[in-house]
């Protein structure tokens, strides 16, 4: 782990090798370890230590980047030379802004709680193995087998530029993901937190085992069609995650966003309110973007109406002079740009859903209020079929249940869905309290369980 002083020292050495007018350094790295188990055995167990130095040079309206994982003088000199060579052969881009100065940075809106915990950073292979041992014990008690991971990391991220911007972030993360498997059924749970003390392997294992047990007889096949679904937070997360890149200004300027021509309209149900909030206590990650700009809290959707986008510095300028500027809400750098140069532009990465006051339902309440529907633990292999209505296809996985007369009745075979995300967010009947959720298709978010009517299942698979 490098310190802020060490990153500044690397930048000072780097700058000496550069003839470019402007230089920017991003350093990321740390130590990561992951213990992986399957068939009640630890079968893979890995660790990594690295620091990646990424250099951007800017000369006369042109910019490029070079990256190395070495910090000796020769490697830094080579990186600078590569970046300068890539920069010099380009045509100038009149839209490229000079590198940011500290005086033009928006203030951080609030201080986020610490995301670095020594207890997580100090976790040993033996302690991870002991955690896995507890999960395996629960599998054995249930006469089933388990597969999953227990990972821990301590990482840092720093950005320094020749105009004086200097930002540093460090954090830890611990994560457990568990699948329990019987002959004809399975269950799953996943959770992560910067503080390893918040991980409860036995609780997660018990829930995954219960889901497996409750569907352990041969799953029934239910005909495809439109059903009321109850999406657990991880299932909701992986679906809604497909729309947030469209909230970046670049997607709008590229005319590849489903929000083009739809901002400030009642696109979703009035119960849908979403913020981008890097400072939320359940969020994770750095509070600055790829140019070192502090992230701002942004109201993306209020009462079902898309209100604002997120912006890199350059895209805020471009949007202001664009014919799209009217009606896209506040236009200003929000601290959501990716490191330059890039084709993606900007995106919100700290999504927080709000549930309407006094109307949240627990998962049990959603089930008990459902005459006939499907409870979905997790989704799998989601892909965008159509980008403007945001039709997504994918499968349910590891715990799909028929709900009848207010009760979970039985496990059912997994469905394929083809569902418009826009339509889905018009059909949310109830939401739970938003929680930090983690899936496999989208980045982590603070998102609730959702009860959704008329969810479109089009096919059923063999298990």
């Amino acid at each position, binding site marked *: 782990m490098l310190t802020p002083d060490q990153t500044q020292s690397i930048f000072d050495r780097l700058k000496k090798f550069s003839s470019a007018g402007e230089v920017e350094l991003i350093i990321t790295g740390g130590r990561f370890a992951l213990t992986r188990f399957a068939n009640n*055995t630890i079968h893979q167990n890995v660790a990594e230590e690295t620091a990646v130095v990424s250099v951007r040079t800017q000369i006369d309206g042109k910019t490029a980047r070079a990256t190395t994982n070495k910090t000796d003088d020769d490697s830094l000199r080579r990186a600078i030379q590569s970046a300068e060579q890539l920069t010099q052969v380009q045509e100038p881009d009149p839209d490229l802004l000079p590198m940011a100065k500290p005086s033009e940075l928006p203030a951080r809106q609030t201080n986020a709680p610490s995301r670095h915990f020594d207890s997580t950073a100090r976790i040993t292979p033996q302690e991870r193995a002991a955690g896995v041992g507890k999960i395996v014990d629960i599998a054995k008690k249930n006469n089933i087998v388990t597969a999953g991971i227990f990972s821990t990391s301590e990482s840092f991220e720093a950005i320094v530029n020749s105009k004086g911007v200097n930002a540093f972030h460090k954090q830890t993360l611990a994560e457990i993901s568990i699948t329990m498997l019987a002959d004809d059924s399975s269950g799953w749970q996943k959770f992560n937190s910067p503080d390893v003390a918040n991980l409860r392997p036995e609780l997660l294992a018990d829930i995954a085992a219960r889901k497996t047990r409750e569907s352990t007889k041969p799953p029934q096949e239910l005909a495809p069609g439109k059903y009321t679904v109850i999406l657990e937070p991880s299932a909701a997360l992986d679906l809604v995650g497909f729309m947030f890149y469209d909230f970046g200004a670049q997607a709008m300027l590229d005319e590849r966003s489903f929000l083009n021509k739809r901002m400030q309209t009642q696109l979703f149900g009035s119960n849908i309110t979403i913020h981008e909030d890097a400072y939320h206590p359940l969020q994770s990650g750095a509070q600055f973007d790829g140019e070192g700009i502090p992230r701002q809290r942004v109201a993306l959707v209020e009462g079902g109406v898309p209100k604002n986008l997120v912006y890199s510095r350059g895209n805020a300028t471009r949007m202001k002079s664009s014919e799209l500027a009217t009606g896209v809400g506040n236009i200003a750098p929000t601290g959501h740009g990716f490191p330059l140069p890039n*084709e993606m532009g900007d995106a919100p990465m700290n999504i927080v859903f709000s549930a309407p006051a006094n109307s949240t339902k627990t998962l049990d309440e959603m089930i008990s209020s459902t005459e006939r529907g499907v409870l979905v633990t997790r989704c799998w292999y989601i892909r965008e079929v159509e980008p403007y209505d945001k039709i997504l296809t994918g499968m349910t996985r590891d715990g799909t249940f028929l709900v009848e007369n207010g009760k979970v009745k039985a496990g059912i075979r997994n469905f394929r869905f083809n569902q418009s995300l826009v339509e889905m967010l018009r059909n949310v009947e109830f939401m739970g309290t938003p929680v930090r959720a983690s899936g496999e298709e989208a980045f982590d978010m603070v998102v609730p369980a959702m009860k959704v009517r008329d969810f479109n299942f089009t096919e059923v*698979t063999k298990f």
Partner: protein
Amino acid sequence: MSMKEIASWALNTAEQRSASYCDVRIVDERSRALMTKNGKVAHASDSETLGIGIRVIANGAWGFDSTDNLSRESVDAAAARAVEIAKASATVKNQVLVLAPEKAAVADWTTPHQIDPFTTSLAENLDLLARVDEQLRKVEGITLAEVNMNFRKYEQWFYSSEGSDIHQTRFVTGAGFDVYSFAGTEIQKRSYPNSFGGQYQNKGYELVAELDLLGNARRVAEQAVALHKADQCPQRNFNLILDSSQLGLQIHESIGHPIELDRVLGYEANFAGMSFLTTEKLRKLKYGSDIVNVVADATQQHGPGLGTFAYDDEGVPAQSTPIITNGQFTGYLTSRETAHAIGENRSNGTMRAESWNRIPIIRMTNISILPGEKPLTFDQLVAGTDDGIFMQTNRSWSIDDKRYNFQFGCEIAWEIKGGKLGRMLKNPSYSGITTEFWNSMDAICSRDQWTLWGTPNCGKAQPMQTMGTGHGASPARFRNIKVGSAFKS
């Protein structure tokens, strides 16, 4: 300091700490990414990474540690940590870890290539991208054009406690373009020569010239615009012809992944999923029709695929394994650890790692369908189809976690009536069950229509590893396939 000497520090430390096996991979990797977007340079970057990965067996279990610091102190410490991790692994195990025997190898191999892409002119490369971009945006209705070029040089030194000493250098080149048209309430897209970045092969810069990006720009851009006026692809069962790139992805998802033996044995149950191909099906399952013949072939003779190498990352020589033979399921992708599970006493050489900081896992090599033996061109295939649909270029792909039920969307399609291509159709998709689909194949074009496609971005494992795989295919026809359910509402 030689790589061999650095590796010897790790091998010695692991042995001193009672590891029963150790292998070391030192990787020196360089890559370049260039991209234009609507007339500007959107991406220009170089990247290099050098590090060491140390894999050990101690107390009968695996451990792995990696570092980018190649000093003696750091390498010794990483090797010691790998042994410590293995001993921790051994506290939760219920099966004995046994590696299939393999002779130690000493070798030096490099991708056959004509032009080292890193020696080519940056200015000329950017100029080519700019000229393609200009051609694309000359077509009225185009709202976004992205053109890209990517190079990679991957040099690896492999040493094992069994005496292997293998040096390999692979060159990868990729290029292509995507073009979008937004009109009304619809975004249409076309790509060339394939979606998601174009074509990738283990070749030098010569691939870029072979692709003729400039010569195809206008035609493909016009198709993107024309899709707005095309009819919606109907929803019913059709005789379906797939172009070779889409068939390559179909192979990847519904043959390549299910035959990974680690997946079959449950190693990927928590993330990438399992497989319907349980071991009792070997040499018993009728996977496809009699004309379906598929191989897993990593040898240089198969072609410049992204799965071509001389040795895998366990030091096992590249091999060609029959996967489906005249429709019969005949082989899995295996490793030294898993080969015994199907009664084999040798790995068929498919263990590959993304870089120095990842362990090798079972990976597709070049999973290719063999072309038809009788001459059959694409035009002849269409001429022999009375009523059907021809789909081209993937747009979306999804398959369940045991690889039964799949759905693919393509960028464009044409109706086939009376043996001729007819009206253009937009938003085509098809779906099915893996073995039912492959058993419906009744024609495949011959060798002159066969292309070895590269999939550069296959994700698997925890922590996630991205790997390039190869898929050779000719256009083929499938009878009575469900079309259009993606848009059923």
